[in-house]
């Protein structure tokens, strides 16, 4: 039997086995879950060769599965994050109800993502895309909070995206007579003009929804923050990358091959930029860590979209690098929030403070991820941002670079807020009992955090496969031109050597640590963070006066005009309007039998009047 089939059968049967074992024994269920994630991953990385394909046909349509260099990049994210977050999930979700269902969906969405990467034809792509959508939907509504609002919103947007994609797929099929992606790419330049515009637009709507591109992002925050954190790590880290994956195929395979492609790129780039700015600003304004991270995810995806839209080899390199890194650090951060939520029961900055000594490993992992997120060397985020800036400037998008700079500066604000709000500050009595999360939760976080560190110093480790993947999409070799294992070049001849930076920073860090250790912590007087009577005011009982409250009030006031325009209300009123119209439509069925009889006569009359034109 083909190993490719075996992987999917293992996933599927494992999912069902996990679900059923959940009814029998909890331990068996957990073991089955981890096994189902690990075994196919091992099989994948050891047994599957690039270029190996399996072919079959369904309903007379030829389908084909196989992995390429390009999709291999994403397989790292999916399986790596999937396994680590899976291990985390076992511990994090312990004691919750209905876990068999949770694990079932978890495995299914991992399977679906692998399926997307394996698909060489549009039908299996769409099938797996939809499996991914509904399994993640079931995760979003898993907690049962706001299901009618958040869950439905997620599914509606996903469905809009998916159906736009489906329309493009069937049009492609009618034009090329084949469902293969390669045939679409091959035949695309010969399509007539309307189709050349329509197909990429429809596909981009589909992928834009999953990657939370700006006007289509409204589902993202609620869904990210409502699903269990163990899953959100995968959701934001890996699942949203599927949108990126598709978008790259569209941009590189289709859009770049038509003359109008330039405008496409500009529009998409600006949408990405708006996404980045908007996501960042809203992230700053949040008081809830989950929501903040969710907005931050949206913003980060915005950067990645910009890179894809710019489309130079360097920009692609940057985007893919950022995509992988984002998967790692955002996964870590969501896991950290999940750990904090599990230990304290809340994720609100204004309530939790001073966990640094209670949860040191979580703090460490968060710190490294935050540094990576902010793009400070020597962690991975720096490489991606550096390359992205360079490519944006290199392609003469000066206005764009200003916007990006603005948003990445603003990103520091929420990074700081995250660290400070949770870990630093006063140690509250309320949280005295808090302990470090179980090892099964901490280890995956730490592994991922160390990963970002390593990739920050030796970016060549992942730039190599990215380069191979990009060559498959038709890009020139970038190795040696833009990067070496641990060195970055730029177009102006500068060189960034990463290892010295590492050593410098390590030295500073060690020095600082030594400083802290020798100097000791001075005993400070305990003052409740919710007590500001020291400044002469009498607090009211119901007011939460934590310092984390209104953290960036002045900044937010200054950018308020930018944030006033929310797109969400428009969607909501549109939805309400449609419902009202539909409600009106159903009044056709008046309930009066006589009216129905009248319809019969009117219908007959209409047909009789138009009887000469009933058929051509």
């Amino acid at each position, binding site marked *: 039997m083909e190993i490719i089939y075996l992987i999917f059968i293992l996933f599927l049967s494992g999912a069902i086995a996990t679900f059923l074992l959940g009814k029998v024994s909890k331990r068996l269920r957990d073991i089955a879950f981890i096994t189902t994630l690990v075994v196919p991953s091992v099989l994948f990385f050891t047994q599957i060769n690039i270029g190996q394909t399996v072919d079959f046909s369904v309903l007379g349509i030829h389908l084909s599965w196989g992995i390429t260099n390009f999709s291999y990049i994403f397989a790292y994210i999916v399986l790596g994050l999937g396994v680590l977050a899976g291990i985390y999930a076992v511990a994090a979700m312990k004691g919750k109800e209905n876990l068999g269902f949770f694990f079932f969906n978890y495995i299914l969405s991992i399977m679906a993502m692998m399926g997307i990467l394996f698909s060489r034809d549009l039908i299996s792509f769409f099938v797996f895309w939809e499996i991914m959508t509904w399994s993640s939907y079931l995760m979003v509504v898993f907690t049962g909070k706001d299901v009618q609002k958040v869950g439905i919103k997620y599914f509606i947007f996903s469905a809009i995206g998916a159906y736009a994609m489906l329309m493009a797929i069937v049009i492609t099929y009618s034009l090329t007579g084949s469902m293969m992606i390669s045939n679409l790419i091959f035949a695309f330049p010969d399509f007539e003009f309307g189709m050349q515009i329509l197909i990429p637009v429809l596909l981009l709507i589909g992928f834009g929804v999953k990657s939370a591109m700006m006007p289509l992002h409204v589902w993202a925050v609620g869904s990210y923050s409502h699903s269990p954190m163990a899953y959100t790590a995968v959701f934001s880290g890996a699942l949203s990358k599927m949108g990126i994956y598709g978008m790259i195929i569209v941009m590189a395979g289709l859009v770049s091959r038509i003359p109008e492609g330039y405008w496409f790129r500009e529009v998409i780039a600006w949408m990405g930029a708006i996404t980045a700015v908007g996501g960042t600003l809203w992230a700053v304004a949040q008081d809830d860590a989950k929501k903040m991270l969710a907005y931050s995810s949206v913003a980060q995806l915005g950067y990645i979209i910009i890179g894809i839209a710019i489309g130079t080899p360097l920009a692609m390199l940057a985007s893919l690098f950022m995509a992988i890194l984002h998967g790692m650090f955002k996964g870590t951060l969501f896991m950290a929030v999940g750990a904090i939520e599990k230990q304290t029961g809340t994720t609100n900055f204004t309530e939790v403070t001073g966990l640094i000594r209670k949860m040191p490993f979580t703090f460490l992992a968060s710190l490294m991820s935050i540094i990576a997120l902010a793009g400070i060397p020597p962690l991975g985020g720096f490489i991606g941002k550096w390359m992205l800036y360079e490519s944006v400037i290199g392609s003469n998008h000066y206005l764009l670079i200003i916007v990006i700079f603005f948003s990445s500066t603003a990103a520091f604000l929420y990074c700081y807020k995250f660290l400070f709000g949770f870990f630093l500050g006063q140690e509250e009595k309320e949280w005295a009992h808090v302990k470090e999360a179980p090892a099964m939760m901490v280890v995956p976080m730490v592994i991922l955090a160390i990963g970002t560190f390593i990739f920050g110093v030796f970016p060549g480790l992942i730039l190599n496969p990215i380069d191979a993947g990009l060559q498959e999409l038709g890009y020139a070799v970038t190795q040696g031109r833009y990067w070496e294992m641990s060195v970055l070049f730029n177009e102006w001849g500068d060189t960034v050597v990463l290892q010295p930076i590492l050593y410098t920073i390590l030295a500073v860090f060690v020095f600082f640590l030594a400083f802290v250790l020798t100097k000791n912590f001075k005993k400070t007087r305990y003052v409740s963070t919710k007590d500001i009577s020291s400044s002469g005011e009498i607090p009211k009982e119901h007011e939460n006066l934590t310092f984390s409250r209104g953290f960036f009030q002045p900044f937010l006031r200054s950018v308020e005009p930018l944030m006033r325009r929310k797109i969400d209300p428009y969607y909501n009123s549109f939805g309400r309007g449609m419902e009202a119209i539909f409600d009106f439509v159903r009044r056709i069925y008046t309930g009066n039998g006589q009216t129905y009889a*009248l319809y019969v*006569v*009117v219908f*007959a*009359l209409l047909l*009789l*009047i138009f009887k000469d034109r009933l058929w051509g």
Partner: protein
Amino acid sequence: MKKTIVILLLAAFGYFLAITFLDPDFEKDRNRNGVKNVYLEKTVSELKTANTVTAIVVNFRGFDTLGEVTVLFLAASALGSILFKKRHHVGERSITLPASSIVSTGAKLLFPAIILLGVYVFVHGHLTPGGGFQGGTIIATGFLLMLISYRNFSISHNILSVIESLAGILFVVIGLMGFINGGTFLQNFMPTGTLNNLFSGGIIPIIYILVGFKVATELTGLIYTILHEKG
């Protein structure tokens, strides 16, 4: 207002019907040599049945008739089901039409005659106008007459139901017996006799008698049910 609109609509509708049916071409282009002539010819030559309508209803389009008795059967059952109530006392009449003694005496006199007429009509269905439906309905009107003239005239529901079922079953069984000798459903398997003889037409009179029984019992049961509806 509504009436005006409806009248206008109907006028338009009527116009379309009129230009269809009152068109002189409607008669001109008609194909008058459809199945009609074959039916007329075969009725005499092979089925030996005098009444062509009977031959068509029972033999050529016997399947329709089977469906039709099913419709009646369904209607009778449906009536029972629709009007069904838990505490339904059989024999308790909801409607009592005041009947004068003239009516009741007349009914008593007429009843046997009506039954006889009905039986005659369906027995001679293949020879003269009439047949199972007509005879059956005539018998049913006889019972109807009795039911409305005598308030305590009652018929055993079970007997009706048994006769009805048996007639229906025999109809289908006779139809299935067409399969012997490698024939088809409802195919004639009996000697056809001579035209205009009481014993002619093969299975046609048998089936029509069965239909007569079935229709008579079904309609009687139907009226019985609706009469005993307690409002």
